[in-house]
């Protein structure tokens, strides 16, 4: 059984996002080999009813976005589509800039984002992880459920993703130098 098929089996069985590293351990190969397997799997799934969704170091299988109307008819779960202005702004910052500190979100929006972040966390649209460069703070990043709502298989598929990442990073550099005066 080829590696891409093995990966497909595991992801199907799991039905949840899985770390690439975990796949490598399970299949007893290097991470690089898994990455190749994932590429090959993605190619084989092209045009099919199921596709590979990637977010940072995790992957998951999901229905292809062409079939969402079909599934929407079958599912009883109603998607809560209302984000509100604050939610929309905050999600945009996290999507195009994440993982991002709360202070950065507050700085860009000019208001305290505590409540809206909590709201988005509870809705499962974002997640909070410990900041690797400062253990006392957190970083906010998108979840697979957010990808699901947006119907994108990768952040790179978001409109203007590449150009905006660059623009925002330039801002961030100037901001970090200013931060010491705050």
């Amino acid at each position: 059984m080829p590696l891409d098929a093995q990966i497909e089996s595991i992801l199907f069985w799991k039905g949840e996002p899985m770390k690439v590293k975990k796949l490598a351990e399970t299949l007893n190969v290097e991470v690089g080999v898994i990455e190749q397997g994932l590429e090959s799997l993605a190619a084989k799934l092209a045009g099919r009813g199921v596709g590979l969704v990637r977010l940072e170091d995790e992957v998951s299988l999901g229905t292809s976005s062409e079939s969402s109307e079909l599934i929407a008819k079958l599912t009883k779960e109603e998607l809560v589509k209302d984000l509100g202005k604050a939610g929309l702004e905050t999600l945009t910052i996290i999507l195009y800039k994440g993982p991002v500190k709360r202070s950065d979100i507050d700085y860009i929006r000019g208001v305290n984002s505590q409540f809206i972040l909590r709201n988005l966390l509870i809705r499962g649209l974002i997640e909070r992880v410990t900041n690797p460069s400062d253990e006392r703070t957190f970083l906010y990043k998108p979840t697979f459920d957010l990808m699901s709502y947006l119907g994108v298989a990768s952040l790179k598929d978001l409109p203007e993703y590449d150009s905006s990442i660059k623009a925002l990073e330039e801002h961030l550099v100037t901001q970090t130098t200013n931060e010491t005066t705050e």
Partner: protein
Amino acid sequence: MEPFKIKTEQFEGPLDLLLNLIEKRKLHINDIALAKVTDDFITHLQQHQEYPMEQSAHFILIASTLLLIKSKSLLPTLELTEEESQSIEDLEKRLKEYQRIKELSVHIQKLFGVAPIYWKNPTKREPIFAPDASMTMDNLYETMKSVLLHLPQKKEKLPEAVVRQVISLEDMIEKLTDRVTSGLRMTFKEFSSEHKAEKVNVIVSFLAMLELVKNGLLKVDQQGTFDDIHMETEGQVGTPRYM
């Protein structure tokens, strides 16, 4: 310039309001645009006093930077400290970044919930009882205590510095009003020198002064480019209408 009519719209914060004002006038983000919308911004603040304490603190901080910009445009001789110039520069940068986020958020709005990817429903499996060594009464109780301890606070405490500045704004308006009603002829430099302890007071004095100017309570004249600004009352001075 005619004060811009602002619809009763819910703004997310001072930057949201400011950006809205600039975009309504079809201006680019720069100091000229900011000076132009300063009055609109202050007007909005006066008409919407219902913002909660913390919110209005953020608004007032931005307002003081705006008034600084406006003052500089009215009085080119006004010397800005490095910190003041920095705060002006910062405001422009933040506005530009915020504007970019707003543009991008249009994409997110269009995508959200339209053609979702669905995950696989969990396949039914017969559960197998598999406890974990951490499941002891002590651990469970400790965990409960920690859960209760970390229940989110209803309101986050307002940073003290912010509170102090808000309060000083009101103080300053009161003091300035007292001074001018006594018909005293004074210069802005004298007035602010009484409070040189804190830079923010200068801004706030300006705010108060400009506010009074706008309400027609004061006449400001500047004799020459490098002169001080003279302030004097024009007839009867009432309490500034800050309600």
